[in-house]
């Protein structure tokens, strides 16, 4: 399964790379957002994890869009990923 992930503003924590194509290892149950975050933290996050994740979820102030829709409408952490889903993380904490 392949998922494009984009970062807006948070790319500083990911070595400055904004777009990532992520292929998750296959497993019996479908991947959900919660697991994706853990995976990102382990494999993509280059520094300062506390600026991106907080506990189980993303840090407050980071907007998450799945296929250009607010993840709050999709179930947030419980949403199960489908092939080619596009996930965008936008940091709202910067800039004015």
């Amino acid at each position, binding site marked *: 399964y392949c998922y494009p992930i984009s970062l807006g*503003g948070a790319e500083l924590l990911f070595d400055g790379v904004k777009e990532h194509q992520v292929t998750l290892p296959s497993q019996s149950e479908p991947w959900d957002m919660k697991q994706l975050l853990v995976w990102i933290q382990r494999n993509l996050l280059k520094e300062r994890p506390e600026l991106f994740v907080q506990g189980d979820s993303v840090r*407050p*102030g980071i907007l998450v869009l799945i296929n250009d*829709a*607010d993840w709050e*409408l999709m179930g947030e952490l419980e949403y199960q990923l489908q092939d080619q889903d596009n996930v965008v993380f936008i940091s709202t904490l910067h*800039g*004015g």
Partner: protein
Amino acid sequence: MCQVDEDYNGQLDRDEVLSFSKKCVKCKEATAVLVIRAGDMFCSGCFKEYFVHKFRAMLGKNRIIFPGERVLLAVSGGPSSCSMLNQVQEGLSQNAHKKLRFIPGIVYIDEGGALGLSVEERQRTVDELQSMFKATGFPYHILPLEEVFDLPSSVLEESSPSSEQPDITYKAAVDHFIQTNRNCYLSPEKQADLTGLNIQESHTHSLQQIFGSIKTLTAKEDLLQTLRQHLLVHTARSKGYSKLMLGDNCTRLAVKLLASISLGRGAQLAIDTGFSDLRYGDIITVRPMRDYSAKEVSFYNHMYNVPSVFIPTLDTKTTDKASVLRLTESFVTKLQAHFPSTVSTIYRTSEKLQTIQPSPSSSTAHNWDKCLLCMCALDTNVVEKASAFQATLISELLSQRRASRPVDTASPTLRPEFQGPESTAAGGVGCERAACGGGCCSSVKAPESTELKSLLCYSCQLTIKDMSSADLLPQYILSEAQRRKRRSQMREEIREFLLDEDY
């Protein structure tokens, strides 16, 4: 509501949200893609309408920007100001419903010098922004923060507005404008071809010295904000703009409000966070984005491809407790995550704040009643006997060692009756010649930071106190400070001869 085992972390809403097809609350047809506030879900099209309408309504409702006026947009490169730029662009375009009618210009201030960024990094950011500005077709100005060293001290004075618009009502102005410009649209001004930043290395060095001398991040942020504001106002004035538009969004202003209270700027809350800011006199600052939460802005920018540039600032990648502002931001955002009406509640409260206008005898509201740096009314010059501020002054006095306290000839922060035995010289200024400069005949020159205190409001005092030496401040601030000191001394001297103001 108060049931045992009830988990308040949004679980209440969760269950219904898991069904995928939520309809937009406005058109009730399309699938909703965004949740704003608590429970308002919009589809993409309705959201865009709502977003665009809010901008125009904000400007229209407040009726401050007259048709044909030149307005300077302060763009920091961040999402909110770029969104503001985008909205202005859309609003001015020919086919806009309820077209905006002013003439915009853009200004960007490169603060890389204060952050220690290299020239190449700064140039790269500037290039990116320049191509963005060029695409808008508006005239733009890109300035390095180092230009604060070339500011005239008049920037710290409140100027009277130019007499161009005598008491004409907004409606009359709009009607007049429509009549005379019926067939031609406002063509944006020609862009000047600017190459790169012109940075003087010595200035960069001085800038770094200033920020290096400040201990806390809070004070650094405050001073940066002050210097930036001065430069913006000066640019607006010198290039002939009468309004300045800032891109502060609702979330940012809510954070600023709470942080300001923590920093002792409670008296200036209304000016700092209101829609319009009249402290500079001729240049009015407006904040048209103040009704948009950060989430709305980010979502819109993403959906409609509004370009913005990520530029690090002083508090990038710092921990939660690095500065007061940072801590407040963290507090508000975390609270907002669980209670989505936090930011709007704070915002509503800020809307109710108003400044008490000074008494009608505004001829007496001279410049020396305003803070030197933030240009808001001084809250430290009238010290009532039982106020909290008086208490801090007393404790400061008591905690200083008596022997080392220099003879202060020019800092009337304490009322005479509260000064101890050291007041012998302070009371009698003893300067016979009015033309004497600040520091007078006293051979003991009081340290600069003490001298500035009487000219600053409480929170600016705290910021300057954090600097190891106020001498590092740019010349325009120091010379204006000296001028005010001299005036104030002169006033003291001839006080007995002045007619009573109530006369």
